[in-house]
């Protein structure tokens, strides 16, 4: 019985926490963009405009829903749901800290430590493309269809290098469980390098980063919603909270993907050379590990913003070319090298 209560508390907590980060992210995106572009950004609602996301939320909720003529009603309303749901559920297997010992009971900071964490994230992540395609198709708008088609091709192509890069990680750590991978990154190897994924898989990390930017539909891979070309791509026709789900789902996705980067390549809650857990009590270490984790996550969230406002967008065929001609061969090469090293070491 107690296990259930703890599980529910964990679910509610991480759900609210991810929502909070995603909400703040919309603010960070706009203020960050403003900072780079010599302007102020939203600064009217609350201190530093921090309540701007709230105001946007109220606006989106109270707006009228407009269904375009000849739109496919079922697909139309299914689109945003199918996009937002996977974004929220992918976090279920994400570790977000080490563990807390409360009343002699050890609580791991992860909703569910399944031993196929990897596959779960890949599977759920791939579902999001349906939201985009169905929304684009159901809108009965040529720009939306173009956006939907672009995203199908793009997401499917970039899932291959993403999967291959992850496979190399599995080779290195010998497990599919995200928590086990996180735990394995403590300490050092070769005497001086932290035991982090990025040092064991430098090429894999680069491939993973590129693929993740494509998966998240972010600049330079934001073709499905390239506003100057196809108006707003798959969500051209959407308004009110249906649009809100698309926009918000994107930020939730960013949180998930940034967390994944940290877990796989940046040592999760570990700090190189120092084992902080030795100096802290069981409760405080749980909280500190949680904070360390999200400090790292926030850096990668900021990186998303940074890249978005710095570089231009690829063209459709260039995205495909990069995916199939560069990333996939490199990912295969990386896999081969990794396997070779493991074989030689063994």
């Amino acid at each position: 019985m107690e296990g259930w209560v703890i599980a529910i508390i964990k679910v509610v907590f991480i759900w609210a926490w991810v929502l909070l980060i995603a909400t703040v992210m919309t603010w960070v995106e706009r203020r960050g963009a403003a900072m780079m572009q010599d302007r102020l950004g939203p600064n009217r609602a609350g201190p530093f405009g921090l309540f701007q996301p709230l105001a946007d939320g109220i606006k989106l909720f109270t707006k009228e829903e407009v269904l375009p003529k000849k739109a496919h009603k079922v697909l139309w309303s299914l689109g945003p749901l199918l996009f937002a749901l996977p974004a929220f559920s992918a976090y279920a297997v994400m570790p977000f800290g080490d563990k807390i010992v409360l009343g002699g009971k050890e609580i791991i900071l992860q909703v569910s430590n399944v031993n196929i964490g990897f596959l779960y994230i890949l599977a759920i992540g791939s579902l999001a493309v349906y939201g985009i395609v169905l929304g684009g198709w159901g809108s009965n708008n040529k720009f939306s269809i173009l956006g939907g088609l672009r995203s199908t091709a793009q997401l499917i192509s970039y899932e291959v290098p993403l999967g291959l890069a992850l496979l190399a990680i599995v080779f290195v750590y010998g497990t599919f469980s995200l928590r086990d991978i996180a735990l394995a990154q403590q300490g050092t190897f070769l005497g001086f390098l932290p035991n982090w994924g990025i040092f064991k898989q430098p090429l894999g990390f680069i491939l993973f980063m590129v693929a993740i930017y494509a998966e998240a539909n972010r600049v330079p891979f934001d073709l499905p919603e390239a506003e100057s070309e196809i108006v707003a791509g798959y969500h051209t026709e959407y308004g009110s909270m249906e649009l809100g789900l698309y926009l918000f789902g994107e930020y939730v996705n960013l949180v998930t993907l940034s967390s994944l980067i940290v877990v796989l390549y940046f040592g999760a809650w570990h700090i190189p050379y120092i084992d902080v857990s030795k100096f802290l009590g069981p409760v405080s270490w749980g909280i500190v590990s949680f904070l360390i984790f999200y400090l790292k996550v926030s850096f990668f969230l900021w990186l998303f913003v940074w890249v978005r406002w710095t570089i231009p967008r690829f063209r459709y065929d260039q995205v495909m070319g990069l995916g199939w001609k560069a990333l996939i061969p490199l990912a295969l090469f990386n896999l081969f090298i990794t396997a070779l090293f493991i074989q030689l070491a063994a």
Partner: protein
Amino acid sequence: MNQDPVSQNDQERLGELVTINIGPSHPAMHGTLRVVTVTDGETIVKAEPEIGYLHRGVEKLGESLTYHQFIPITDRLNYCSAITNNVSYEMAVEKLMGIEVPEKAQLVRVIMMELARIADHEVCVGILGVDLGAFTPFFYLIIQREEIYEIFEWYNGARLTNTFGRIGGLDADLPDDFEERWRELKPNLRKANEETEKLLTHNRIWMDRTIGVSAFSPEDALNWGFTGPCLRACGVKRDLRKDETYCMYDQFDFEVPVGKNGDVFDRYKVRMIEMEESIKIIDQAYKLYKEMPADAPLKARVPKVIKPPVGEVYSALESPNGELGFFVRSDGSNKAYRIKIRPPCYMIYQAFNDLVKGEMIADLIACISSLNVVAGELDR
């Protein structure tokens, strides 16, 4: 609209082709342009521009307004660089009346026109970046354009539609602290351009997106009547400031940049270099201006009511977009009998189908931004 869309071969697979109507209300169609695009997947089979959504009867207005009343109307042609339009029109009427404009007024015109050129190019390059997904350089440039508009505003109160000058010269001299303002503005302009170049020019994505996109040969460009940066990007060194000089441009030392392939990248690059050259011209013009006596005349002797002799004249200058010409025919009354405007982008936009055929939708957007088609002067 011409209803001959596609070739015979294409006609057979018309079922596979999709007609996409881009504009007149679309984020990348600056103003109210409209392109009816026939696409095969993302590849453009045919792109037919349809114009006229911003038609305001400017030329007809010229027939019912007096010569001076028409100057504010010319502001509304290429609204990114209104001063060039004003001067071009004034030059046409002056040529018709045989008026010799005092040198001091000519120098002030040069200074203001070159500032307008920089402002126009900044908008064009910035928007090109936005359309290719690079949002940030736009702000660096637009802030500097704002500073240029400050100078305009402080010259005669108007920012966008300046109504600069009068027939025969100017109504007002450069204000006293121009030198100070210009000294302040110049490094900022250069810095903004430098930052833009850093963000774009050698950026691999930017190069991939622009080099070789909608390339045009010099022969085609000349046959279609290209002028301005778009022609120079093709490698034809033609600049009315040098070739058919006016306003003492022959006394300034400046380069005319040319490109090689006539693609989007060359057009971008030509505009970037032209901005730098314009800064040089302003420096030289201001130096000459300073040497003029303070009480030198700003306006030639012109009658109160402008009544040019019967006759017709065509006069053109190098506007930021290319050759901007005014044809004025007078019947001796105080209103023109006919005014015809030759906007540069009208000729350039004709070739749009040839420019983007076989490219992708994203290239169409890049092309239309790099041509700098301004609906105001296109539709008139």
